[in-house]
């Protein structure tokens, strides 16, 4: 047997029960959870120590989807990096784009025309809805409810259709450029969007009827994976997870970017920081997103879409900025250092999934394996973003 085969066998053996006396004497079992597991939402791998079904220890191993995006950023001119940002959090491309172009605009000092700003917010809120829908779908199926998965995808399809009509892609949008928007809204887009907004709240009610009061759902989620506000801040957690723990921090309110200071919306908060609260906060966020969208459609101004000379961008040498926005999963930010050239010297991504995932060992300790799945579900990670 060659060495290569032996090493492959060793990894197999890692997932099997050892045939020795220690089986009956041992207290804890090591369980390799992932990277190929239906509910790790990608290629997350967890090394678990379990005592029966109870998790004693959890050690996440990531990097299976590492593509060196940050290295790629250093090779391309600013506007060519936008498609690469799509592929980090691939279920929320618009917010990734906005974080990136926002950072570039801040670095260079570009001002974006108001119409472009409104279109950006429209796209981002739609993206928030679609990302939350995908989260709900997978989270519900993790807990065993199969049907919400299909309902969520049914509505998500409508959002993706809107994206497709706007920029020609459904998932990897590439829909923003430093300095503004590359295209205007197509004819009839506003009406289609309004139709969707009229229909969508009823659909949220439908999901809630299926899940929110369901006793099994409540039993599976209430008190599971409690994240206290202190711990949440300590771990740098952002987004709905942080707000479910009761900390009123939303970048759209705290440091308004684009035109978020001109629309009226509420930031949903919860108190307990458990899985159920995270679920409730995200559901409410979808409703608030529809509110923002309606206001944006009402206020949508006419006018230019691109700032002047936005295509020929040279970043000042040594200039550095950090710009974060509120993505569906938390604060997604870009730290960009200029080089006096049209390419960034350094472009770092603050990936919300990456930082939120860090708290997983704390959340799952002393829970059961079934809870682990529920907790991974509400952490709402996308491995493309964790590994970049």
């Amino acid at each position, binding site marked *: 047997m060659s060495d290569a085969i032996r090493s492959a066998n060793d990894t197999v053996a890692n997932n*099997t029960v050892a045939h020795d006396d220690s089986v009956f004497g041992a207290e804890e079992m090591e*369980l390799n959870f992932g990277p190929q597991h239906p509910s790790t939402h990608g290629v997350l791998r967890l090394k678990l120590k379990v005592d029966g079904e109870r998790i004693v220890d959890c050690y996440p191993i990531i990097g299976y989807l590492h593509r060196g995006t940050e290295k790629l950023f250093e090779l391309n001119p600013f506007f060519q990096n936008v498609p690469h940002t799509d592929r980090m959090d691939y279920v929320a491309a618009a917010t990734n784009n906005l974080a990136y172009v926002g950072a570039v605009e801040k670095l260079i000092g570009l001002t974006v025309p108001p119409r472009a700003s409104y279109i950006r917010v429209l796209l981002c809120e739609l993206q928030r809805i679609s990302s939350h829908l995908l989260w709900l779908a997978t989270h519900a199926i993790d807990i*065993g409810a199969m049907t919400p998965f299909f309902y969520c995808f*049914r509505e998500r399809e409508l959002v993706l259709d809107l994206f497709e009509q706007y920029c020609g892609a459904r998932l990897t949008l590439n829909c923003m450029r430093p300095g503004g928007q590359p295209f205007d809204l197509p004819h009839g887009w506003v009406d289609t969007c309004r139709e969707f907004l009229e229909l969508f709240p009823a659909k949220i009610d439908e999901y809630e009827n299926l*899940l929110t009061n369901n006793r*099994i759902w409540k039993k*599976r989620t209430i008190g599971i994976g409690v994240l206290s506000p202190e711990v949440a801040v300590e771990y740098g957690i952002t987004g709905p997870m942080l707000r479910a723990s009761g900390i009123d921090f939303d970048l759209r309110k705290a440091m308004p970017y684009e035109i978020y200071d001109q629309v009226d919306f509420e930031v949903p908060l919860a108190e307990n920081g458990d899985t159920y609260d995270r679920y409730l906060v995200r559901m409410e966020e979808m409703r608030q997103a529809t509110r923002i969208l309606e206001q944006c459609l009402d206020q949508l101004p006419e006018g230019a879409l691109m700032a002047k000379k936005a295509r020929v961008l040279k970043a000042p040498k040594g200039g550095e900025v950090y710009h974060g926005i509120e993505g569906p999963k938390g604060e997604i930010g870009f730290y960009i250092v200029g080089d006096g050239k049209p390419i960034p010297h350094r472009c770092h991504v603050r990936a919300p999934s990456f930082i939120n995932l860090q708290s997983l060992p704390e959340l799952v300790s002393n829970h059961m394996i*079934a809870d682990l799945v529920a907790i991974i579900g509400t952490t709402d990670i996308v491995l493309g973003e964790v590994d970049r």
Partner: protein
Amino acid sequence: MPGLLQWLDEFAGPTLFEFAVSPTLKILALLFLFVLPLISYIVLAERKILGYIQARVGPNRVGPWGLLQPIADVVKLLLKEDVIPVRAVRWAFVLAPCLVVAPAFVIFSVIPFGPPSTGEGAPNWFITDVNTGLLLVIALATIGVYGLIIGGWASNNKFSLMGGLRSAAQMISYEVPQGFSVVVPILLAGTLSLVGIVQAQEGHQLFGLLPRWFVFHPTGIFAFFVYMVAGIAESNRNPFDLPEAETELVAGFHTEYSGMRFALFFLGEYANMIVVSAIAVTLFFGGWLPPFDFLGMAFLPMGLGGVLWFVTKLFAFLFVYIWFRGTFPRYRFDQLMDLGWKWLIPMALILVVLTALLKLLFPS
């Protein structure tokens, strides 16, 4: 064929024929003519109904409306490679699926699908009427759990092992309330024979408005509830499908199984589902009895009307199973135990006592 039977008859003598050969042939006939087609089409129905619940259409490519899909599935499963993991315990790995399927199929021998023979060439619509039929059902259902445990252990995979352990705990704890809840109809009917229990449910109550099925009995309805919950748990179906919870344990006890061996587990699960539904129909919903006499379809020959009623009720139960699967999330392991031990068992015990008291106070 008749020659062969005659030869068997002469060779083995009437006793052997009556007690061994004839039931075996009947069981096989029932299996291949009724149960296996039923199971494969229930699988199709499940996929179709789930599809309709979930805003899609389900399988519709093979044959008209996908009606040939089960055949395609079976052929696929038969032709697939049968993988046995290197470090699996071979004999146990091979034995486990059989242990699941065989008892589930044997139970069908005592289920009355229709009325007993009324003469005039009408057959008995059951294979045998054992006077301890219900005990047999419970006993046989218990064997099935060994298949799951052995399968989970023999695969030599941690997820399988956990699935096996879960199923062991779950099925053993839910057999208790199931057994107790079954006592209620036994008390009401005064017999263990399944045919006898159905016959005890004939007639009407409340001035002929309600059939005298045990589900309409004041304690019977709660017994039915307990039986149904325990039965769903017994057959490992949603919301109690923990042993094979695909999002937690990959596929639970049958993670390592493939091809026909996996199909056997699959058959076992669906056979169990049918058995639980059939027993529920028999015990609580009056078996082959129509709700009202004028709906009895007595014009059909050979008691087929009764069979039709039985099958209709059976399908209603199976539909509910599928409907549940399309709606509910899954319980957690400890919550499942909680429900079983803290709620269902006390409830079933109280029901047994209550029923006995009622029976004492109102003997009619």
